């Protein structure tokens, strides 16, 4: 913390002589292009992206081609999948495919909103705590740790049950508010290490303010990490929302994949052998979240050249 003695002498500039020297350094030309190049050649990223985008597309344009609304009593009850009802119908004759498509929409909405809310809170707190340090850091860190140890899911159950959260955005907001702590911790520690770099001091000597430094100097060094964080938060929010919906604490004015499973169980689809009622939503959630995680592992390989053995 006090005076920094030169830790490395001139001879230690390059650990392996001739290898890491300036002459044979990493080629930087178009770093973004290089990232894209590797991303488009990483099977994990490709598979994950195709699955997620496929579901997103279905959710977005699917309703335009549907004859029935999700809640309409459209056909015969308990009909197995057929040409007219690809996923069959519920005990009340509702079109399960229409519900599925509508459910996808709210699932993605909850993922994006929940992910965004926790990313914004986590990054703000992480950046400020890491950059400011001192008392502010200690207080924010304490807050982070407190929220971290709160059994978030239980609190969400209570909030949902008592406040009667009944819309998808509301649900996403509450999920976001409880899932930011680990983002904050990770962003804080990265900011902490970037803050000690001299280019931050140099930016300050250029008369640049804190906000600009965080935006223009600190954050760009973490873009890859922040992107991966968002992918994880996106998947996490979907999963949490599905769990809440499943236990009956989902939105009342919308359809979601979790809610479909909740209704399937409520109306004994399992006992009645109506597999077409609970398999599609369950498989949908599993595929979306699983693909997001696979994509995340792939992105890790793309962004981290050490893992990129190609």
């Amino acid at each position, binding site marked *: 913390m006090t005076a920094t003695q030169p830790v490395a*002498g001139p*001879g*230690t*500039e*390059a650990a392996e*002589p001739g*290898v890491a*020297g300036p002459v*044979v350094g990493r080629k930087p030309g178009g770093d973004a292009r290089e990232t894209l190049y590797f991303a488009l050649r990483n099977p994990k990223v490709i598979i994950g992206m195709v699955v997620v985008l496929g579901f997103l597309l279905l959710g977005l344009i699917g309703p335009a081609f549907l004859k029935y609304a999700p809640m309409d009593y459209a056909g015969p009850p308990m009909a197995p999948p057929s040409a007219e009802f690809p996923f069959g119908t519920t005990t009340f004759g509702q079109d399960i495919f229409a519900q599925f498509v509508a459910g996808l929409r709210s699932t993605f909405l909850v993922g994006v909103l929940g992910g965004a809310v926790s990313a914004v809170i986590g990054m703000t707190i992480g950046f400020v705590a890491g950059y400011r340090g001192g008392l502010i850091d200690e207080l924010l860190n304490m807050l982070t740790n407190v929220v971290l140890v709160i059994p978030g899911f239980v609190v969400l159950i209570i909030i949902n049950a008592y406040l009667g959260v009944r819309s998808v955005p509301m649900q996403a907001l509450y999920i976001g508010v409880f899932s930011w702590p680990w983002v904050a911790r990770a962003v804080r520690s990265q900011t902490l290490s970037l803050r000690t770099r001299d280019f931050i001091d140099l930016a300050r000597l250029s008369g640049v303010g804190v906000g600009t430094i965080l935006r223009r100097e600190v954050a760009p060094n973490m873009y890859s990490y922040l992107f991966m964080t968002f992918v994880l938060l996106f998947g996490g929010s979907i999963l949490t929302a599905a769990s809440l919906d499943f236990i009956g604490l989902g939105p009342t004015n919308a359809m979601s994949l979790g809610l479909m499973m909740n209704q399937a169980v409520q109306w004994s689809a399992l006992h009645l052998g109506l597999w077409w009622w609970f398999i599609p939503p369950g498989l949908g959630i599993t595929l979306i979240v699983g693909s997001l995680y696979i994509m995340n592992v792939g992105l890790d390989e793309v962004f981290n050249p050490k893992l990129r053995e190609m």
Partner: protein
Amino acid sequence: MALAVNDLKVWYRTRRGDVKALDGVTFEVADGEIMGVAGESGCGKTTLGKALIRLDTRMKHVGGTVVLDDDELPLADDAAMRRHRYREVSLIPQYAMSAMNPTRKIGRMIKDLLGAHNVRYTDVLPELERRLKLVGLEPDVLKRYPIELSGGMKQRVVLVLSTLLNPSLLIGDEVTSALDVSSQKAVARALVEFRDHGFVKSMIVITHDISVLFQVADTILVMYAGHLAEKAPARTIISDPLHPYTKMLIGALPKVGDRYEEQQLEGIEGRPPSLLEPPAGCRFRARCPLAHDRCAEAPPFREVAPGHHVACWAVS
């Protein structure tokens, strides 16, 4: 003759080709000699130190031999080298003191290391404690954690530890760097003392700091871009260097007492060549004021005076 290195070539494999970090070096280290290796970053001095004990996965032994005490070292054979490592050749790597496991006490760490070489800790404990005292450390440092010791203390522990089995050759890579001058002096003196006590027969001390070498080394070997430039007794290298690179390098170092107002020193223009595809001939040619046509051919590293080797056509 403790160590004889003959035309040693060790290259690094990289995605863009081989980096010829050590490209045909020939030298000898006598019994009881402390040889300093000096040079700037990327000259191959660290590669030289590593090559004599363990090639990492990216290094490959391209040619040449290393003979230690009449025994040729099987450099390329990692398993066969195990027999020689630590017992005969010992290395204090760069950043050794910061590489200590912070959760292990010093004594435990030494015990583990000895165990890996089939030596019982209790057998050597009396000698270990004696040597710690010799370098000015109390034996209770063995019960302490690395974080409790200063940089200079840690570096002395590393020195004692790496010479516990009286190896023939000790290689120290930047052992005095990153230390304050007072600790630097203590560590440097301990090196000489260990040689004087016969704990190690000979030493290769690698550093960028020539003034430290002048204090501890008998001879100094100057490297440039994977080649040898000059080897001579320490005092000769400082006061009467022959190779143009050595001359300019020494000339660029201010002595205590040199003043900018009175006499301006000069650096060396330009940069060392890339070792991916180094130019043929003398590698210092592009920066050398004496360069002429003949330098397109690599000058031999020859003895121009007793114990004074130079690789330069301009030196007769």
